[in-house]
């Protein structure tokens, strides 16, 4: 038994690092299209996503992947606004709460590895900004 699921990534760098963001971009475009379908004729202007630091997403690579994945979709040309959610840990040893830059699971206060992540694993589409198409053309339409 053999299953093929080839996807086209026109001219894009196929390194694993890029593919990581690309897979997320593809899922994101699907989600935006679902919103757009509920508002027939609308133009998607932008989408706001919240991405936690533990996800190790490189914003520029995600934006690049989004541009490619969105081509020929309802999200084509839309701006991607990426809100970074910092990594917050609570240490189960010393109880300290800390914000860390790197996705390394160590309490900066006491060095313990026994920490609980309070935030940082977010991967969320928060909102989509659309312009309705049915109304008489708004003046800022190009």
């Amino acid at each position, binding site marked *: 038994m053999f299953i093929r*699921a080839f996807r086209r990534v026109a001219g894009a760098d196929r390194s694993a690092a890029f593919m990581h963001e690309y897979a997320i971009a593809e899922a994101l475009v699907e989600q935006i299209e679902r919103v757009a379908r509920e508002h027939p004729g609308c133009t998607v202007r932008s989408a706001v996503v919240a991405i936690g630091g533990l996800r190790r997403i490189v914003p520029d690579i995600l934006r690049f992947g989004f541009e490619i994945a969105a081509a020929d979709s309802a999200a084509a040309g839309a701006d991607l606004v990426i809100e970074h959610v910092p990594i917050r840990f609570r240490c189960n040893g010393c109880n300290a709460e800390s914000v860390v830059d790197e996705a390394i699971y160590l309490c900066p206060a006491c060095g313990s590895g026994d920490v609980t992540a309070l935030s940082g694993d977010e991967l969320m589409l928060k909102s989509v900004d659309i312009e309705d198409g049915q109304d008489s053309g708004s003046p800022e339409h190009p």
Partner: protein
Amino acid sequence: MAKIPVLQNILEANEAIAGQVRQRLERAGIIAYNFIGAPGAGKTSLLEQTLPRLRDRLPAAVIEADCATARDAERIKAFGVEVVQINTGSGCHVPAHLVLLALDSLPLERIRLLAIENVGNLICPAELDIGESGKIAVISVTEGDDKPQKYPMLFRQCCAVVLNKVDLIPHTDFRRERFENDLRAVNAGVPLFGISCRTGEGVDAWVEWLIGQTARE
């Protein structure tokens, strides 16, 4: 302009399908492990060492996911084990919907263990639920001893770690103690199996653990 609030996990569609996979497997009484590791870590070699030792003890089937070719599936077929090959093309991981599709061509009523070899990659497969019962991290000594802290998503979530190619330790600067300390820092209790698919060292202990897991179900 209207702001439409969504507040949805970007991977939600995948997670819903992973839930369907999990339900089907649970109903059939199958425990499914998702083998995750870098390209060449020895995921297929580990299965080649494991499957013959399971014969007559634990009926198993395999799903092989690679970007291209059916080579890994051919290697598994040689052991007379049912295998489905998934080619993901440029995809860096296997998504849940392809696993769901693969289940249709496996004899679920005859197996107790399903091994899914994910695409060689330490990042994306760790983030994507495919309906597995647990993730097995496969890492080889030639990748260096600093991986648990660098890829904490995988090492925190996995239910066992297989450290492969221990036969090569004398030829590398791999420090086993540092690896273990790093691993314990991100996942204190996870079972660790140091093995060599070349010499067979350590494989039996891993296989006994695996069989023990399915017995506990």
